[in-house]
């Protein structure tokens, strides 16, 4: 589904992502773990195409028409309602006008936004805003979902709800989640990748990692 080979990215001569390679298959939830500044967000931005490299090192399978992306701080337009925002995103994703209403209805139901879709985004709670961001990413039924720190700033109940939502969505697609919360990665992900100083230092199935905390500290404390 996604094949990354020898991916690197530098800013002002400083290499932030160094020769990273990995594959992700359908229906997999992959957790990208790492301390702050390890290169997680840069790697995510490379996958979304927001950043590019001189050599193309990312290849998507042909059935991936577009990807869904929820950035770290979930930027939304507070003056729009979720419905207006979804219509805006649908147009940018080139979803035909005839299909837009059914697509929007689908994500409103799956992200449980039925009671708030007509309210201005600026008036919604943090949990609902996060759902709006995820719903927008899900428009057009993307084959691949990229979520950067999706639960940051949510309260414990909202975190649990959001985790369940992510698990539901992985039934139809592959998901990559960037996080520095180890318990979240263990609870949600099938596979864990740890990135440190721009290098993937661990790539294993979650079930094959005995003590994630210990491994994380060992691999990132240098």
């Amino acid at each position, binding site marked *: 589904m996604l094949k990354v080979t020898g991916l690197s990215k530098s800013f002002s001569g400083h290499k932030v992502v160094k020769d990273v390679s990995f594959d992700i298959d359908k229906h997999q939830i992959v957790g990208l773990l790492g301390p702050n500044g390890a290169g997680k967000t840069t790697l995510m931005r490379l996958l979304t195409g927001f950043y590019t490299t001189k050599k193309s090192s990312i290849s998507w399978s042909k059935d991936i028409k*577009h990807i869904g992306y929820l*950035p770290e701080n979930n*930027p*939304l337009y507070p003056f729009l309602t979720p419905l207006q925002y979804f219509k*805006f995103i649908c147009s*940018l994703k080139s979803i035909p006008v005839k299909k837009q209403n059914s697509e929007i209805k689908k994500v409103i139901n799956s992200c449980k936004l039925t009671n708030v879709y007509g309210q201005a985004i600026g008036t919604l709670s943090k949990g609902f805003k996060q759902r709006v961001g995820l719903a*927008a990413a899900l428009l057009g039924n993307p084959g691949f979902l990229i979520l950067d720190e999706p639960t940051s700033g949510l309260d414990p109940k909202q975190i649990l709800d959001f985790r369940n939502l992510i698990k539901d969505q992985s039934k139809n697609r592959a998901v990559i989640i960037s996080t520095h919360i180890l318990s979240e990665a263990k609870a949600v992900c099938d596979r864990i990748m740890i990135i440190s100083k721009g290098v993937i230092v661990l790539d294993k199935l979650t079930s094959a990692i005995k003590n994630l905390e210990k491994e994380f500290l060992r691999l990132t404390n240098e």
Partner: protein
Amino acid sequence: MNKIKAIAIKELFFFLNSPFGYLYLFIILVITNWLFFSEFFVNNLSSFESLFSNFYFILIFFIPVITMNSLADEKKQGNWEVILSLPVSDLELLIGKFLGIFAYSLISLVVLIPSFVTVFILGMPDVGIFTGQILATIFLLCSYISAGIFFSSLTSQPLVSFIFTFALLLLNNLIVSPMVMSRLPQSIGQFFQFIFISQRVSTISTGLLDIANLLFFFSWVSIFIIASSLVLKKRKL
């Protein structure tokens, strides 16, 4: 085209869903009309010259305000990251923003319609000159907005964008003023008249619309939009 339209509509919504959007229009309406009608009956001339010159002066403040958020705020909040991760080109984003802000700025011209109607009822202003003044205003709005978007693309701080755009627009108006021109050597003065907008706006305002001036405005807008696109591309390097 649908993407450009969606971005333009979203941009227009930004102003129309905010009290500031209406406040700016109200300020333009009050100041422009107050300045115009305070001398209109004294001069007893059915001419729009002073109305438009007041309006052009207000644009020096108004355009930096309405363009400062266009890209700077998108960068600051991170919305451009979402938009540019979608199948949207930098140029589509910029043209959409340009058209959205332009549509809003046209409303500032629409709010002046009662003043136009009043003058047409009270006197017989020259329709040719009036048309030239409207066209000159439209060209001026396009030029100012493209410059504002460019300065907004350079930074993630709207205030910085405001200061740079304001400085350029002020310079554009001051440099060709008789006070500055009289102190400059003739060749330098002519050069400034050539590269800045004010002189060309004055020519079109007289009802004289020529290809050279049209090309100048088209080039000015294109250069600033392309320069903004190059600035946005820098994130990818």
